[in-house]
């Protein structure tokens, strides 16, 4: 097994879809549509597993084109260090302009979200010669997914996930906490790893689930697989392995500060906290103090440790 440094991975290539592209993240389905039926959508190959048939009912449909941007005006409601600006209209609709290039000096996308948050428009500036809509562009897609998850019973969290016997064990932590390390240990122990960096948590009909995402860590694991959520652990490197259960009230706060939710709308904040409340009421949450060995994963899952050496 090889653990690659962040950003060093297998070379990826782009794949294009003509006129329509539909992606699913957890329960959430996002449809990208070109009104001319011709405009190509491009995604990195890492996102191919998240493509679903175009007749899949969508939670959000974006009408897309490549054209010079008709930039919105008016006061900025919120911004993210130059990478995007959000303007919220009196009708509740939102205009977000995403920037790229050196010092975020180039306007790349204009995303318009209608007040219903079920439809919108996306315009990509004709910057690239292939004139495709980069549906998985950063931070565009992650922004869309996090905003919509907050309104569709889900959250995106800094966590790796291991699926064992149909149950998901989620290992939560900021960069450097050991998410990919624990994922690698779990994989050697026979677990499936849908993500080693960012996990979608959902709760529907009272059932918490964990899902993979295309946004991977140094282990480069990314699949749309999901499973019923069994345990949540906050990772903490330590000289000895042990678990410290967390009370629900603290668990909600610890999980909340590790989300990738942008906290842009009161409704989304309430719904996000409601998701976390539902999860911590049903799923044990603990701090996992761990050394990078199979014994830590065995402790987390209650299984017998294998005799693999320390990494």
């Amino acid at each position: 097994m090889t653990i690659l440094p962040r950003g060093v991975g297998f070379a990826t290539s782009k794949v294009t879809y003509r006129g329509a592209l539909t992606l699913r993240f957890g329960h959430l389905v996002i449809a990208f549509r070109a009104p001319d039926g011709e405009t190509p959508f491009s995604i990195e190959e890492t996102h191919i597993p998240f493509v679903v048939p175009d007749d899949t009912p969508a939670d959000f449909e974006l009408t897309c084109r490549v054209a010079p941007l008709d930039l919105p005006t008016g006061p900025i409601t919120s911004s993210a260090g130059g990478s995007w600006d959000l303007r919220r209209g009196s009708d509740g609709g939102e205009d977000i302009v995403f920037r790229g290039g050196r010092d975020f000096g180039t306007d790349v996308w204009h995303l318009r979200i209608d007040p219903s948050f079920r439809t919108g428009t996306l315009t990509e500036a004709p910057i690239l010669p292939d004139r495709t809509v980069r549906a998985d562009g950063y931070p565009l897609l992650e922004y869309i997914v996090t905003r919509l998850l907050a309104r569709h019973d889900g959250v995106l969290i800094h966590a790796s996930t291991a699926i064992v016997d149909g149950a998901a064990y989620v290992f939560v932590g900021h960069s450097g906490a050991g998410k990919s390390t624990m994922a690698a240990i779990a994989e050697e122990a026979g677990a499936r790893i849908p993500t080693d960096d960012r996990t979608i948590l959902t709760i529907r009909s009272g059932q918490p689930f964990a899902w993979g995402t295309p946004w991977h860590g140094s282990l480069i694991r990314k699949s749309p697989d999901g499973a019923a959520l069994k345990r949540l652990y906050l990772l903490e490197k330590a000289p000895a392995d042990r678990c410290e259960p967390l009370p629900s009230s603290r668990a909600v706060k610890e999980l909340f500060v590790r989300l990738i939710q942008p906290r842009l709308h009161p409704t989304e904040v309430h719904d996000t906290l409601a998701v976390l409340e539902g999860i911590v009421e049903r799923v044990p949450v603990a701090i996992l103090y761990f050394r990078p060995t199979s014994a830590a994963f065995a402790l987390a899952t209650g299984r017998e440790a294998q005799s693999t050496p320390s990494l």
Partner: protein
Amino acid sequence: MISGSVDSVEYRRRDNYVYRLTVGEHLLVALHARSDEPLYALTPTGAQLWERLSGWASVDQLAESLATEYEISIEEARQDVRDFLDQLGSLNAVESREPAV
């Protein structure tokens, strides 16, 4: 810093925070912020004052409600209110105005 000496000033919470009672914790979540502190925990007293601050209220008005609820002296309640408003002020979570004449 919010002045503690002018009790006629009225205060009202801003809309850049979201309050929610979550599994027994009174949480105040910062909107639009990129700070390292996205949420704060309020005491039950703080939560009560936060609810009261949905409309304009003076220190005396806020203190009277606390004194009645918790059976403490009005002076003690005033100090608690001033301390709380100072903390909210440091978070830019409250605005103030001179009362209309």
